[in-house]
C-alpha cells in the first residue's frame, strides 16, 4: 500500500505526464504547420524547389547532427532507466552525456546558421529551411535547460524512483525533439 503522501506524488506524476504529452501535441502542430508550408510552397511554386541558384546545404554537418541526435536519444533512455532503478550516479552520468550531445549539436548548428543566413532572404525555400532549423534549435536549447535543471536537482538528491516527474518530462520532451530532427533531416536534406 502507498502512503497518502506517496499517493499524492504518484498522482502528480500521472497528471504531469498527461500534461506534457498534450503540450507535445501542440508543439507537433506547430512544426506540422511549418512542414505544411514547405510542401504547399514547394508544390505551388512555379519555379524549381529549391529555386535555381540556391544550392542545397551541405549534407555532412546534418548527418553528424543526426548521429548526435540518435546517440542522445539512447543516453536519455539510459538516464530514464537509471532513475527507475534509483541509480543516482547513472542518472547523472547519462543526463550529462545527453547534455554533451546536445551542446555539440548546437555548436554544429550555430556554424550552419552562419553559413546559411544568406539563403533566408533570397527565397521562400531558404526562409522555411532556416525557420525549421531555427525553431528546432530553440527546442534543443529548452531541452538542455531542462537537462541542467535535472542535473542540479539530482546533485541535491531531490530525485528518486518515485519523485521523478521532472525527469519524465525532460525525457519525453527530448524524444519529441529527436523526432522533429529526424523529420527535419528527412524532409530538408534527404527528400
Amino acid at each position, binding site marked *: 500500500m502507498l502512503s497518502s503522501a506517496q499517493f499524492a506524488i504518484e*498522482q502528480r506524476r*500521472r*497528471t504531469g505526464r*498527461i*500534461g506534457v504529452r*498534450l*503540450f507535445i*501535441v*501542440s*508543439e507537433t*502542430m*506547430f512544426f*506540422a*504547420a*511549418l512542414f*505544411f*508550408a514547405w510542401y*504547399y*510552397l514547394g508544390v*505551388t*511554386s*512555379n519555379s524549381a524547389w529549391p529555386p535555381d541558384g540556391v544550392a542545397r546545404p551541405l549534407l555532412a554537418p546534418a548527418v553528424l547532427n543526426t548521429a548526435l541526435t540518435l546517440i542522445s536519444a539512447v543516453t536519455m533512455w539510459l538516464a530514464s532507466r537509471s532513475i527507475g532503478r534509483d541509480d543516482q550516479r547513472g542518472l547523472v552520468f547519462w543526463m550529462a552525456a545527453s547534455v554533451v550531445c546536445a551542446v555539440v549539436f548546437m555548436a554544429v548548428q550555430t556554424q550552419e546558421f552562419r553559413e546559411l543566413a544568406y539563403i*533566408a*532572404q*533570397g*527565397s*521562400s525555400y*531558404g*526562409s*522555411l529551411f*532556416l*525557420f525549421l532549423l531555427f525553431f528546432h534549435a530553440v527546442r534543443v536549447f529548452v531541452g538542455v535547460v531542462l537537462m541542467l535543471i535535472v542535473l542540479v536537482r539530482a546533485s541535491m538528491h531531490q530525485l528518486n524512483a518515485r519523485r521523478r516527474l521532472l525527469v519524465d518530462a525532460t525525457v519525453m520532451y527530448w524524444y519529441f525533439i529527436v523526432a522533429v530532427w529526424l523529420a527535419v533531416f528527412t524532409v530538408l536534406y534527404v527528400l
Partner: protein
Amino acid sequence: MASISIPVRSQDKAKSGLLGWLATVDHKKVGLMYMVMAFVFFIGSGLLALIIRTQLAAPGMTLVDPNTYNQIFTMHGTGMIFLFTIPMLVGGFGNYFLPIMIGARDVAFPRLNAFSFWITLGAGLVMSIAFLVGDRSAAAWTAYVPLSTSTYSPQSGMDIWLLGLILAGIGSTLGAVNFMVTIFTMRAPGMTAWRIPMFVWAMATTAVMVLLATPVLTAALVMLVADRNFSTQFFTTSNARLWQHMFWFYSHPAVYIMVLPAMGVVSEVLPVFSRKPLFGAKAVVISTALIGILGFTTWVHHMFVSGVSPAIERFFIFTTMVIAVPTGVKMFNWIFTMWGGSLNLKTPLLMCIGFLSTFVIGGITGVIQAAGPVDSYLHNSYWVVAHFHYVLFGGSVFGIFAGLYYWAPKMVGRMFDDKLGKLHFVLMFFGFNLTFFPMHILGLEGMPRRIATYAGDRGWAAGNLVATIGAFTIALSILVFIINLVKIARSKEAAPADPWEGNTLEWMIPSPPPEYNFAVIPTVQSDRPALDARNGGVTPAAHH
C-alpha cells in the same frame, strides 16, 4: 455511500484584498478575472461598433476618416473574438465551472492557470497599444497578406498587434492543456463518461480544437513577423494563399471554439428551466465531438474566390454542408428538451431561446453561402457580416448572457433582478435582429463589407439606418445589464445554494462556493447528481 475526503490544504486559505486577487491561483478567482477582463473589452469593442454604425447611418458621413474607420472595424473584430468571446467562455466560464462541475477542488495545474490569465491580459493590453499606436488598419482581423506586409502596413502597430495575438495564442493553448488534464484526471468518483455534464463535454471538445488549431496560427504569425522584420520570404504576393490556408485552418475552428462552449451553456440551462432531462444527451455529446472533428475539414470555404481547383472546392462545399448536420441534431435536442416541459420563463431561459432562434438563422445562411457559386456573389458583402454575427452574436453572446444570468447567483451569492433581465433580453433580441437582419439584404444588394461610407444613390440608406437604430438598442440593453450588475452588488438578498433546482454539482455547494469548493468530494451516481441529492437517491431516468 462512499465518499473520499481529502484534507483541505492550508495554503489554499484565501489572502484578502488586492494582493489576494493578483497572487491567486484559485480557479474561481482566475475565472472571475477572465470575465471582468472580457467584459471590459466587450464594452470597448462595442463602443467601436457604435462608431461604425454611426458613420454608416446615412450616406456620405465623415465622422471618422477612412483610415481610422479601418482601424476601428479591425479592432472591433479582434477585440470581440480574442479578447471578449474566447476569454469569457473558455477562460471565464471554463475556469469557474469546469472544475466544480466534475467535482474537483481546482484545475490540474493552478499556477499555470493563473499564468495563462496574466498572459492573456498582457495580450489584450499589447493589442490595445497596437490600436493606439495606429496603422494596424488596412488589414482587418484576417490580416491578409500582402495588406499586412511591411509594404502596405509599414508601421509598428502591425508588429505589436501580431505580438499580442501570439501571446493570446500561448495563453489559450496552455489553458487547453490544463482543462484536458483536469477532465482526464480529476473527476469525482463515479463520474463516468456519460455522466460528465454537457458544458464540460463542450469544453473538452473546445480544448482539443484550441490545442490543435492555435499552434498553426502561431506559426503563421511568427512567419509574418519574420517577413516584416527579418526579410524572410514566406508570404510574398505569389504565396498569398499560404497565409489564407494557415489563418483559416485556425480561424474556422475558432468559430466552434466560440460557439461550442455557448452550446454547452444552453445544454445545461434548458433542462433545468424546462424541468426535464436533456433530450438525447448522448446525441448531444456525439454531435459535439463530430463538430470538433468536422470543424477541421472546412477551412477552404473562406477561399473559394481566392482561386482553388474545382475538385478542392467541391470537397469543401460538401464538408461545409455536412457540418450543419450535427448542429441541426442539437437544435432538435434542445427543442425537444423544452417540448412539454414546465418552462420556468426566467432570464436564463429567455437568453437560450434567443440563442436558438438566432443561431438557427446563422446556420442556414452558412449552408446557403457554402455553395461555391453563391459564395462568389456573396463573398465580402454585408451578407457575410450578417451571417457571422448571427453565429457569433446570436450564438455566442446570447449563450454568454444565458450563462451569466444562470450562474450569477452561484458566483456572487446574490440574486439578480429578473424583470431587468427580461428587459435586457427583449431589448437585445430586437436590437440584434434590427441590426443584423437588414445586412442580409444590403449584402444581396451589393454593399461590400468594410467600406467607410457609401453614396446616397446606392439604395442602401434605409437598411443602414435600421441597422444603426438596432445597434443603439443593443447598447441600451447592455446598459440595462450593467444596471442589473449594480443592483446585484447592492442587493442584500443572499442567493440560496440552488436557486434553480439545478442538476450539476455546482448547485450542491454554497453560493458563492468556498475556496476548496467541496468539503467532501462527492460520489456521482447519475448524470444529475444535484437532483439525486434533492431526492435522497438516484432518480430513475424519466421517459420522454
